């Protein structure tokens, strides 16, 4: 395995051991990255159940593919490639499920997939705040969730990687296996949609 400069020696050793089948080393890797992966999955799908499923699928894939990791990219970049792929796969699967269910429904129920996603229940996160803040915060979180769910998944992922998690255009492009220009273009479109969705709310 090549030694990627941003990976610590301890992590290289841990990955190497896990690749050799050391279950304890693999468990350590899971513990190290589970919150990161869950957090990212939640930011993308805004749903606790879907985020948990995505995280679980991601680590199953990591377990199966770990030997394919050669150390030529940061381990976190490689993990993000897997989790973003799972988010996109889940979205496609949901579309197929909805399509098969909608076959027997009357025409007026077949609205577009993005609108349907907004109608799904949004799970909120328990916060330790005062009751007075709670209403405002809940309303704001709901607005943010609804606005981001209007974005196509590809744009949503780019927005989260770039603007929320602060990753570079180059790393975002590498994670999604697209060109830097395509990543910038998706980010621009995502920002414009969110800006319009939230304009009323953020303008004093």
């Amino acid at each position, binding site marked *: 395995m090549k030694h990627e400069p941003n990976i610590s020696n301890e992590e290289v050793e841990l990955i190497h051991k896990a690749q050799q089948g050391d*279950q304890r080393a*693999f*468990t350590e890797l*899971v*513990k190290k990255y*589970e*919150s990161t992966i*869950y*957090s990212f999955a*939640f*930011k993308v799908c805004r749903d*606790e159940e879907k*985020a*948990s499923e995505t*995280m*679980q699928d991601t*680590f*199953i894939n990591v*377990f*199966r593919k770990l030997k394919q990791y050669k150390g030529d990219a940061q381990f976190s970049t490689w993990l993000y490639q897997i989790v973003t792929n799972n988010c996109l796969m889940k979205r496609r699967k949901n579309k197929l499920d909805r399509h098969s269910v909608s076959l027997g429904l009357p025409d007026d129920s077949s609205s577009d997939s993005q609108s349907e996603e907004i109608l799904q229940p949004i799970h909120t*996160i328990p*916060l330790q705040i005062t009751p007075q803040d709670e209403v405002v915060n809940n309303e*704001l*979180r709901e607005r*943010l969730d609804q606005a*981001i769910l209007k974005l196509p998944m590809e744009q949503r992922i780019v*927005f*989260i990687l770039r*603007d*929320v998690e602060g990753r570079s255009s180059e790393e975002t492009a590498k994670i999604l296996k697209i060109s830097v220009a395509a990543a*910038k273009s998706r*980010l*621009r479109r995502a*920002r*414009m949609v*969110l*800006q319009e969705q*939230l*304009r009323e709310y*953020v*303008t004093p």
Partner: protein
Amino acid sequence: MRTKHPETLCCRDIAKHVCENLDENIDSPLCRKIKKHLQTCPECSEDLSVLKKTIELYREYPEPILPAVRKKNILTAIVHAPKNEQRKAIRHR
């Protein structure tokens, strides 16, 4: 009303370039033109502040906490997943 600045950039160009260069080099000739436009165009200036505030709100969104039961379930699922695959493979022979 939105203005056009023929010698510099129009508002549509500003929206495009501001989005692409929000966190990038602010000393390039293009960014200097953008800054100049923003100083004289209240609409574009407001757009930029709405965009910055929007991004800030998403950054401030509380970090979700992974429930303990989920942590336990991941390892169980991982340990059992390959075995399930093996069983499937045997069944399909």
